[in-house]
């Protein structure tokens, strides 16, 4: 046996032992918060990108869940014990993460943080009849097996966020209604991203129907660092409005580039734009006059939002974004449903799922990302997107 073979034999043995060791414990639980009450706690699990490129979203959700569960466990009613698994925003890893959660004995779930991961995990939820509500996986393919026709819903999977097509339609309708902002629209979107191209496709279809004048469309991909061409194309086409159905990090770069080129249209974004003001070292004056449709604003004055934002800042040193807010709402919505249905940790998963689905399709929920939220049987949420504009470095509500 050569040395190489020896090492490999050793590796194989280690692996086999590892598999045996893990096969019974089913991976280790990531317990973030132990309940203090006497009753057994409901096992709440989710997966999200806790490492890698998209980890900013996964970590935001993880932080918000931690705060919500801490509050809930300190109060009356149902208690939770949380398990967060890393899926790196990857469909394959999301299925593994789901199975790790099932090995742990998950009873209710926040599904996944990102859409691609959610699309792969959702069919498993249907198969196992497991209840889940995702804070931020906004693709229709997360709740429908046939996403194109919005048909064959999975049934036990719900969303706290708007679906992507919904946002595209709402944005087009808003721009049509508010012609005073401008009539010539340019779109810059990310073509290799589920979220962005999802909104883009419905926006374009709706714009055609509504008769919006789209003067230029440009795309970029994750690998791009330079946005000068896309911005210049929009400027050369004489755009008065630039629609940015993208997340706030590339959006901030587009604002910087537009400023460099002296191009000053009205920028318009969706819920992914939220977070732009809390970017470290961002020149907020660049975002002045930026419109966005977002269900959450960290500047809102209601008590719930202020309490959440304060706690989040104290604990994690940053302003929570919309991912965090949606996750915070998810946990409270689950609590409300579980309390109303009298769900306890010793019930079977099938009973818990049935009770939760019955509650979610009938209850009304007030959270920090909207009030009087309702869910359809297919899992889609109905709440009002709030249009806000950034003035003096803060969100200001505007009329719909």
């Amino acid at each position: 046996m050569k040395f190489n073979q020896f090492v490999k034999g050793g590796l194989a043995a280690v692996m086999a032992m590892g598999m045996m060791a893990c096969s019974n414990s089913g991976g280790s639980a990531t317990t973030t918060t132990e309940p203090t009450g006497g009753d057994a706690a409901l096992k709440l699990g989710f997966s999200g990108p806790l490492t890698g490129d998209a980890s900013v979203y996964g970590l935001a959700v993880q932080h918000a869940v931690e705060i919500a569960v801490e509050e809930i466990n300190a109060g009356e009613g149902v208690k939770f014990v949380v398990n967060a698994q890393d899926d790196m925003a990857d469909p394959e890893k999301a299925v593994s993460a789901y199975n790790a959660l099932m090995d742990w004995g998950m009873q209710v779930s926040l599904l996944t943080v990102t859409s691609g991961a959610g699309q792969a995990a959702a069919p498993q939820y249907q198969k196992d009849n497991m209840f889940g509500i995702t804070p931020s996986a906004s693709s229709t393919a997360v709740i429908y097996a046939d996403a194109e026709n919005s048909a064959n819903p999975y049934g036990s999977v719900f969303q706290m966020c708007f679906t992507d097509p919904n946002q595209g339609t709402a944005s087009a309708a808003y721009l049509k209604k508010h012609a005073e902002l401008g009539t010539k629209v340019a779109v810059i979107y990310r073509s290799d991203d589920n979220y962005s191209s999802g909104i883009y496709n419905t926006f374009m279809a709706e714009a055609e129907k509504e008769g919006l004048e789209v003067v230029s469309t440009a795309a970029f991909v994750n690998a791009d660092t330079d946005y000068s061409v896309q911005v210049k194309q929009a400027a050369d086409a004489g755009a008065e409005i630039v629609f940015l159905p993208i997340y706030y990090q590339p959006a901030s770069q587009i604002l910087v580039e537009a400023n460099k080129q002296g191009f000053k249209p009205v920028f318009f974004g969706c819920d992914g734009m939220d977070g732009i003001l809390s970017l470290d070292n961002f020149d907020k004056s660049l975002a002045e006059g930026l419109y966005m449709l977002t269900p959450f604003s960290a500047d809102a004055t209601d008590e719930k939002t202020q309490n959440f934002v304060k706690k989040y800042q104290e604990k994690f040193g940053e302003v929570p974004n919309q991912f965090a807010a949606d996750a915070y709402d998810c946990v409270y919505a689950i609590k409300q449903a579980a309390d109303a249905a009298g769900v306890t940790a010793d019930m079977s998963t099938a009973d818990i799922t049935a009770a939760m689905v019955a509650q979610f399709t009938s209850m009304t929920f007030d959270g920090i990302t909207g009030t009087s939220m309702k869910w359809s049987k297919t899992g889609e949420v109905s709440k009002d997107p709030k249009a806000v504009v950034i003035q003096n470095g803060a969100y200001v509500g505007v009329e719909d």
Partner: protein
Amino acid sequence: MAFLSYLISGLGLGSVYAIIALGYSMVYGIAKMLNFAHGDVIMVGAYVSFFAMTLAGLPFVVSALAAVVICTMLGMTIERLAYKPLRQASSLAVLITAIGVSYFLQNAAQLLWGSDTKIYPTILAGAVSLFGGQLSISYLTIVTILTCILIMVVLILFINKTKTGKAMRACSEDKGAATLMGINVNQIISITFAIGSGLAAIAAVLLCATYPSVYPTLGSMPGIRAFTAAVFGGIGSIPGAFLGGLLLGVIETMAKAYISTQLSDAIVFAVLIVVLLIKPTGLLGRKISEKV
């Protein structure tokens, strides 16, 4: 006029690629390894200069120097710990270790500094206006291109005129013979990594000044693009890396401007393939002569 303006932003992007490619190409020429962790050294440089400016309040030039010093040290440490023990191993083994180092740096950065984007402070705002305001070239683009040319000239002089430079060339020709001539090959490789990482820091500062976002995986895409640029120009050749970088930047920008923003990636790589089919060792690469 639009064409000129695209050309200039292409040159700006290209010169950033070129500086990264110079570091890549140098290390490849001497150590004969594809250093996939190079892009992540850039990322570290970006964070160092960012914190030097925002937390310590240092001026831009001082923070750039700090980044150069720290990246140089980092590069030498990586070389000492992860690459040097593999000097006798196959080049693929080193490649895999480099990938391990790359994962390590990215994850360490995420844990240390968080995963959200940080916006790099504005450096050198303003632009030169030409043709009655129809064409504007930002000072930053000019500085980037000039820095790039300066670095290239200094590197060429260094390699051709100094004793260390000559030793480097000897190592890249034939390590065994270089050792017999009394050259400390290990030391030369260390110096190469130090220079390459120092260049990475300069690239980081210019990259972030032009595209002001700093995040843990910042270096991976420019790293791959620079690798492409280095091969494009003829890997191991310093003027080749410069030319390859500039051309890659211009092609990318032009592909976006005139063909398709969705498919620019595919177009850039298709051009690369065509060029390599015509010139199989890159634009300025040396012909490989084969012996039995």
